[in-house]
């Protein structure tokens, strides 16, 4: 489970209008034909945060176990450094250590 606030890039106490705006923006950014899984996650996040009632419900009753992949996803989504390419040395080291007889 990903933090729905993070998914829609929302602050902690958003209004219903802010949630709707963030949802529409996220849908435009992630249309279903491009990334169906991401689109579905956006939909789910919107359903969780749509109204004040649903936001409080999420805050109060969410009891899903915390998984390492959730933490990984969350922390990863906070980093913006996406364009880095590996160095030649890194590629050579990976290749060398990966060669098996």
């Amino acid at each position, binding site marked *: 489970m990903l*933090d729905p*606030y*993070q998914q829609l890039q929302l602050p*902690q106490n958003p209004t219903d209008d802010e949630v709707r705006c963030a949802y529409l923006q996220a849908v435009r950014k992630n249309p279903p034909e491009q990334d169906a*899984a991401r689109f579905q996650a956006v939909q789910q996040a919107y359903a969780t945060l749509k109204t*004040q*009632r649903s936001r*409080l*419900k999420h*805050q*109060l*009753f*969410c*009891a*899903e*176990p*915390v*998984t*390492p*992949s*959730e*933490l*990984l*996803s*969350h*922390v*990863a989504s*906070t*980093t913006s*450094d*996406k*364009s*880095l*390419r*590996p*160095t*030649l040395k*890194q*590629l*050579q*080291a*990976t*290749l*060398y*250590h*990966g*060669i*098996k*007889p």
Partner: protein
Amino acid sequence: MSRKRNKRKSPSSGAGSLTTDALIEKAKQSLDNGKFKDAIGHFKVLIKKQPQAGWLEWLAEAYSGRTVTLAEKGMLKEAILIWRNRAELCDKHLAEPLFLRLLAIAGQTDELITLLNKHQTALAEQQQLVPLHELLAALVIAGNNDLLTQLPANHPVVTDYPSAFAALQAYCQGDDEALQAELKTIPFRSPYKDLRQILKALVCKVDETRVTLLQRISPDSPFNSLAQALANSQLADEELYVKLNEQEPHSQALTLTLKGWIPLQKFINELINLGKAPSEEALMRLLTRHQAKFEPHYLRQLITRLLIPSTRCQALIKLAANKPTPFEIAVIQSIQSEIQELNPRAVLDAWGIAINIQQENLRAQDDVKTALIIALMLNHRCEYFRSAAAPAEILISEMSEIIKYDPEDKETYLQLLPALRSEGMLKEARQTVEKATKYFPDDMEILTEAVETALASNAFKKAAKIARKILDRDPINHRVRQALINAHLAHTRKLIKQSKFSLAEKELQEASSWAKSPADQGKIDLVSGVLQVKQKHYTTAQQLFDSATTKLGGALCGRFLLLLELNKQACSVSQVLKQCHLEKTFKNIELTDLMALFKTLNRLLENEDIIKIKGSFDLLKVALKKGVKLHFSFSECLDICDTLKSLDHHELRQHYAKAALKHWRNAPVFVYHALEAKVLSSDYLSTAEFERVKKALSSAQEAGDTRVSYNLQEIIDRELYGNHFFDEYDDDDDEIFSPFGSMEEPEMPTIEMIVDFLLDKMPKKEINELRRSLGEKGLQDYVRDIAQSVFDDTALPPIPSNSENEKKKTAKKTPNETTNQGELF
């Protein structure tokens, strides 16, 4: 401190004392089990004793196995040495592909080049040359440039190297144009062809194409580590986490780089080190160390979610970055009590603490959000009680509280109103309708509930008025159309009762104007028929009843609805049947007719007065007994049993369930229906039947049928201990849970009430044993004596018995049992 080395005995030590046959057996066993070192030792001893060609072959096989094992461990020098021994001792060819690969990776290039040149033709024939060239290409790209000077200048590894390396460099520098140009110069059959595919995939922006490119790389390719790192970087986070756990450090680092996660490497490495399924404690420590990476509200939620499944909650709280508030702790404990499936009363209490905290906050500061939090918790608790089949009064009380805090909770109104009506709390229902329509004046569902409530309160005109309002806006609203027709029919009945026949006629015409389906018209025909009977127009009445039967789905269903109508209008059934020349019994029953009846019954059970339904249904009992012989499908028979259960008609239910068990022997669901029906018909289960329930329970559990398992377990629990909601708690302060009397009027228990209470509370196993030995009457008398002795404050009576032996047993048991029974009070 001296260190003792655990020297392993040589595998061949003691081998000399073994017979040849035993040694052969042992050597072969070691070879088969992959214990190559032992196998080598044994075969050497054997060959020393008596050289044989077959043993030499086995020894060579053992050497091969050992070489591979050592190479896999990265012990390349040792592997090469073992291979040389193989060639020398077993008279085997040295320059086999494995050996050449080992030389290449170990950097022993001189010997490698010599052997390659010498055995080039043989290797080409074995189709081993291309894989070897690919390996050399990978080694050269990885930085082993010596090979380039040792290989002939026209060797493809040498000729294609500049393009391949330049392409790699271009990629790393982000020069995609140069990369594409260099890739074009790498020939199709080049030993660098896999690198070309990987570089193409690295810059490819289309997911499917990237996947196709990577799929072309064989798992045996020396470039596979690059392909794998790239493939992993494309995985969803959940799968990626698993793969990162399996990857080697260099490959893992490359995947993180490709994901752009290098700044997070420390966190990710710590996370990966926790393994695939880390404990809550380990995750809590990690969160505390890296709390800055999480937004405060999300961190709080993560902490709460880690605490919920933890068995060491208090210890874990000490590790948390943010200590939970008393309210958060109360919520955690409430959810824990639900997960641990504690008694509903414990769950109620746990949520009560959380609710109290917020109620205090609300008293201190009137705040909509706090009120909403309270309403949500009440709602959640209510849902929990609903799933635990809590009594209706508890649910009603909870729902009434919810709308006090959250008057805009439409869903709760929609659940509360039917509940109030079915409990006969019509005044409260009307008040709730008033409140709901204030917040939702134009909501169709709320208005529909208003119609139903008005109908239940016999305010037929009001119901018709609201229904018309709804149908004006929503003409296809079937539920309201039904409600409107029902309103007119109910009003007609009222007018018939008052002998206002012409007004009743008009009301029926009004109802007819709304009727669209034959079933609606059939219902109207039934009421019209009764109106005709009242006016002594028996022939017209008969025609109307006949017409209704056709429209209402068959003889049996039509007859049932007629009986129900006569019941509603307090008419004598036998008299009307006689007056209208209608047959009293059914000669034959068709399956479709029977199923139509049960379908109608299920529909009626949701809305109509169950007592009237039961009364009318009882009159069809004889006819329905004949139906047992029909050929039902499994689901049809199940539907029948379920409906009969809802009707509390356990005799017929038992009949149908027994008939089903003849077709589907020991089907757990029918064992449940047959035997629960027997228990509920005030009978008890024999030992064999009790065993049958237990057997059915294990079958249902094996089949994963949780509903039937639960129901069968209920029978067992009831037999052994009794099973009642909130039984384990005896809170004198809360009258809802009092075993005697109502909430408003506490009353003194009478002897009969105590007898019932004792029979209910005494361990079922003992009750059943007493019932078997004393019979039902004897048991009742005995329990009455106990109750009387409590009233009179005299000694408890001994258990009566029929046989001498039992008398002796009773005499021995009586002191203990007396104590136990006394403790019930």
